[in-house]
């Protein structure tokens, strides 16, 4: 698989996790590509932590709803509200998140481990961007799905135990990469799907945690 195809491939597989009407929070980067691949008939309520329930498409300069001083996304870029969406304050909004009213959050990881622990907010001594809303989302969303490239510069990001400070413990339900789909179970990682471009041995070699292969292992590709 070409490097340029990887993110789209992962986002496309992520889109299959969703059903019509799901309330979904998408992290920065790859997760924001997921709506491009939604199956026909599936419309999401996009939840944005800075205060939109039901975000719309990104507006551009000249659009009637382009308002970069009053309607922005969590990256500070112009955003919009959907026809049936609305604006909300931070305390109420995070009440919705913690209270389990968000069906799924998709986010990237620096490290994720066999117990569903996630580290994605700090590299001590190097970077301290902050956790923003990530900890709340990982704890509060009904499903927490990590979507990322399987390795970083060839080094495994899926580990037996995270080494970096955690974002949240025991929060990840599923890991979707360009190589496979892993479910986090109480017995560890269960590979349920594989990209036919790779072998089970390839996946195991790129993963620093034990993987159990599902009896009915499926292809990630239709």
């Amino acid at each position, binding site marked *: 698989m070409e490097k340029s195809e990887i993110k789209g491939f992962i986002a496309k597989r992520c889109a299959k996790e969703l059903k019509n009407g799901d309330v979904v929070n998408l992290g920065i980067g790859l997760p924001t590509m997921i709506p491009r691949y939604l199956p026909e008939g599936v419309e999401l309520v996009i939840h*944005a*932590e*800075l*205060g*939109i329930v039901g975000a719309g498409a990104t507006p551009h300069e000249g659009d009637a709803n382009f*308002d*970069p*001083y*009053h*309607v*922005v996304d*969590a*990256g*500070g870029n*112009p*955003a919009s*509200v959907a026809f049936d969406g609305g*604006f*909300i*304050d*931070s*305390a109420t*909004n*995070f*009440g919705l*998140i*913690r209270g389990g009213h968000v069906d799924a959050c998709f986010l990237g990881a620096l490290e994720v481990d066999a117990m569903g*622990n996630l580290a994605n907010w*700090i590299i001590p001594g190097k*970077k*301290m*961007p*902050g*956790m*923003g*809303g*990530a*900890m*709340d989302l990982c*704890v*509060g969303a009904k499903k927490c799905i990590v979507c990322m490239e399987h390795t970083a510069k060839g080094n495994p990001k899926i580990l037996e135990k995270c080494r970096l*400070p*955690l*974002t*949240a*413990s025991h929060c990840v339900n599923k890991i979707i990469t360009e190589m496979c789909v892993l479910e986090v179970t109480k017995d560890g990682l269960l590979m349920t799907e594989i990209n036919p471009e790779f072998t089970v041995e390839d996946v195991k070699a790129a993963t620093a945690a034990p993987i159990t292969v599902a009896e009915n292992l499926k292809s990630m590709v239709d």
Partner: protein
Amino acid sequence: MAKKPVITAKEAAAMIPEGATIMCGGFLACGQARAIVKELVASGKGGFTLIANDMARAVGPMGEEFFGIAELIHNKQVKRVIATHVGMTPEVGQQNTEGTLEVNLIPQGTLAECIRAAGAGLGGVLTPVGVDTLVEESPFCMGKQTIDGKEYLLMKPIHADVALLGTYKCDETGNCWYKGTMRNFNPVMATAADLVIAETEYVVPVGEIEPENIHTFGMCVDYIVEGERK
């Protein structure tokens, strides 16, 4: 009808003493009292503690130099930051590494709720967010509690000397309405500081904001500042 004084941004900045703890509404300075912040920068006063979601932006949406409280950071007028995310203002990380700026990071929902608690007369917040993370070591974390078998962190209320609100419309009695995503932390901050100043794009007559749509009540607002219209 108790009208609230409408003052200039400069007069507002003059009310804020050196070393004050200041809450600033705004998310990347959307919904931030940017005119008052500009005057705080010009005042040269320092030693501030800033409580805000983030430290705003070094570059504004249309290329402006500085947008919101980032300028206070760059001007080295801040000694402590309490925020959820400072990745958009690398200067924060740099001053922290140099040892001149204390940074306390708190999850976004927890920050909102700790401020809400202070404004709502509560002694703390029990939240599952942050369990098994560095948040347990935060100066705002008072320990863990187990309730019905589930672990929670006990977080302290967060109060400030001053809250600066960034609103779109504010009527003469201080009732506020926020446009779009300006609302964010502003309504809770309006309840959790000794002095509350609402900067607004438009001062409007009472009644223009429908009673059902008042986001922050004038009872929480001490002064009004007319800022820049965008």
